[in-house]
């Protein structure tokens, strides 16, 4: 016999997209809201000073118990399964996508257009920035379009970044400060950044993490939080394509089923677990999984690739002043007409690579005590290192796919997700041109400062991944509409990362949040 928990809206997942939806619905509707999170809670703000210290001293995970043993998949995916999700660990980088990201087929003849434009999403970008608290510097409007100012002034450029901006100004490429979900002013009761250098775990609360939003909603009794509860199936109403319930169990009582009933279900379980649950919920009417009548669930998994490098600069910098701030340029994300497609960002950081203390010289001579220090000083007195990286967008393909892996099951016998990422042929065809162009730009930048490239690297890691339930106007080629409503089930929404059409060339979290808020507006209509 199941225990039944009823509400107007049931949100499955407790990460950053869920927080956005829950907060907006709680503020703008009277709906009763249940948030179901598979994981539990991790280190509280008060505990993060101690976990940060152990991370610094020993490299330990600063968020204990942030995943469920055995509940994991194969392929590039986050391990976190905890209230707050992967956004507990994030650094807080929140650039917007560029207007071109939404129209690459129309503008450049590659990839896919989104069913929405940048302008459609812009108000929700602003709302997400205000909910999180974003500190940012307005870049050149043609490369950084926005209708209102950033909520907070930017994080200050460190002495190092000031020197580096003098260099990039000389190179003729506009750079400005990366926007961050970190406070430069008190925001929603949270502290101002104290420049602790460990943004993965912020001991002051200046970095936004979704647990803050959930705690506010719980304190106001606006949500019911059912954590440590793994949903194993979404279930149809009899004779209907509407979702009637979600069933699962609490980790402490795996033999006692829980049934969540709601008028509306919101799947906010991130880029891997959202598609996974839909596929896992196959039934006689939808034998390939829910929302999957056109076989699009789990397809078009995407992310961006990057090229990176280290530049030796003929200047003295002091690594460690503020390593978690960086310079950003979207100049080449809005490139204008192109002969061959390539859009990318550029990020620059201070770096210690090649400038750390070492045990031996290049020719193998062992260094002792004062010799180590003398060698270190010689390598830092008049030269420094900058790290450079460019994300470029990968053209999605239906063959980039999340499937259920019958060979890997959790403790309850459920097959786990397997993601086999792939890039569209256009990306592969363009790859030599892409690398040649990017490394050429890196080299030009280095030479503008009288520096040189120390090393370069190209990566095919699908960073800031999304997809699997992509949005579109045509049910034949998409899973959800522009609002995140599944084409197959009128009361089932998917929000955030799974719904993206492509992942552009900028960190994705802010876009995932904006999409979630846009979906929440439709969900609020009931």
């Amino acid at each position, binding site marked *: 016999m199941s225990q039944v928990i009823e509400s107007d809206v049931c949100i499955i997942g407790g990460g950053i997209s869920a927080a956005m939806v829950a907060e907006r619905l709680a503020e703008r509707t009277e709906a009763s809201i249940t948030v179901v999170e598979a994981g539990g809670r991790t280190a509280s703000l008060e505990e993060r000073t101690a976990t940060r210290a152990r991370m610094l001293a020993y*490299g*330990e995970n600063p968020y204990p118990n942030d995943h469920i043993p055995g509940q994991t998949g194969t392929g590039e995916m986050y391990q976190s399964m905890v209230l707050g999700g992967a956004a507990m660990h994030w650094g807080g980088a929140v650039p917007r996508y560029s207007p071109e990201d939404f129209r690459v087929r129309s503008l450049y003849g590659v990839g896919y257009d989104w069913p929405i434009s940048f302008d459609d999403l812009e108000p929700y970008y602003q709302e997400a920035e205000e909910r999180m608290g974003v500190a940012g510097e307005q870049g050149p409007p043609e490369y950084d379009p926005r209708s209102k100012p950033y909520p907070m002034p930017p994080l200050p450029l*460190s002495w190092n970044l000031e020197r580096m901006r003098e260099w990039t100004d000389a190179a003729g490429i506009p750079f400005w400060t990366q926007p961050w979900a970190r406070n430069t002013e008190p925001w929603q009761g949270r502290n101002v950044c104290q*420049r602790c250098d460990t943004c993965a775990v912020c001991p002051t609360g200046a970095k936004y993490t979704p647990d803050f939003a959930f705690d506010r909603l719980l304190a106001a009794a606006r949500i019911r939080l059912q954590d440590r509860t793994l949903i194993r199936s979404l279930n149809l109403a009899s004779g209907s394509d509407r979702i009637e319930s979600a069933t699962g169990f609490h980790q402490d009582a795996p033999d006692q089923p829980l049934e969540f009933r709601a008028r509306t279900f919101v799947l906010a379980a991130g880029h891997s677990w959202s598609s996974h649950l839909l596929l896992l919920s196959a039934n006689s009417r939808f034998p390939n999984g829910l929302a999957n009548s056109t076989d699009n669930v789990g397809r078009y998994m995407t992310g961006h690739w990057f090229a990176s490098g280290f530049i030796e600069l003929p200047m003295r910098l002091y690594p460690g002043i503020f390593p978690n701030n960086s310079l950003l340029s979207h100049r080449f994300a809005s490139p204008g007409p192109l002969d061959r497609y390539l859009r990318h960002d550029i990020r620059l950081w201070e770096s210690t690579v090649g400038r*750390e*203390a070492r045990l031996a010289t290049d020719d193998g001579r062992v260094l002792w*005590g004062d010799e180590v220090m003398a060698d270190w000083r010689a390598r830092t007195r008049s030269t420094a290192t900058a790290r450079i990286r460019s994300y470029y967008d990968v053209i999605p393909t239906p063959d980039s796919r999340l499937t259920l892996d019958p060979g890997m099951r959790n403790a309850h016998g459920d097959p786990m997700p397997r993601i086999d990422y792939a890039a569209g042929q256009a990306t592969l065809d363009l790859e030599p041109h892409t690398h040649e162009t990017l490394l050429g730009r890196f080299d030009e930048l280095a030479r503008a400062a009288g520096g040189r490239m120390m090393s370069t690297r190209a990566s095919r890691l699908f960073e800031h*991944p999304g997809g699997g339930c992509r949005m579109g106007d045509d049910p034949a080629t998409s899973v959800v509409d522009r609002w995140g409503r599944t084409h197959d089930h009128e009361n089932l929404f998917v929000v955030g990362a799974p719904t993206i059409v492509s992942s552009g060339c900028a960190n994705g979290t802010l876009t995932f949040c904006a999409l979630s808020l846009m979906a929440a507006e439709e969900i609020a209509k009931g």
Partner: protein
Amino acid sequence: MAESRRTFLKQSAATVAVVSLPSCAPTAAESPDALVPATLRAVGEAVLPEELGADGRERAVAAFELWSEGLEPVAEMAHPYLVPETVFTGPDPRPGWAAQLSGLDIESGKRFAASFGEVGVPERRRILEPHVRRAGPDFGRPENAAHIAVALAAHFFASPIATDLCYGRAIAKQQCRGLAGAGDEPAPLPGAAS
């Protein structure tokens, strides 16, 4: 000026010690694998900068001892980005390090007819060199060091104190400093040649 610099080193060493404090491991005094203090200090004299002075080296060794007491074997590490498997630190290095300290005394006795702490720094370095050479050229994280001499040096040279001494500036990395002053060139250390 020199006194001010010593004060800086003392304060900085205290900061490192605080950062290393939270622990769930037994103390060195309780452990059968405790690192022999005298031999460890003799290693410190061989691998740490003389410019720290005796007090500075003592603080660096003490900070290492406190850090090593807090080591938790096979601890869950911070998740690598987009890696779904849990990654753990290695097994406890301390028994091996303790055995290495004993070994240094034995080897020193055989080579020089004196304990490791009784021979001069050049002789100690002759004993340590093969172990250090195998580890180089980079220090790596101290808990991963195959030899206690490398672990001790790696722990010190990764510290905010060492960075500040290298640059001769009060950079104070990893210490919550507030946003004010981020745009300033870090102040010279008292008495430091920058």
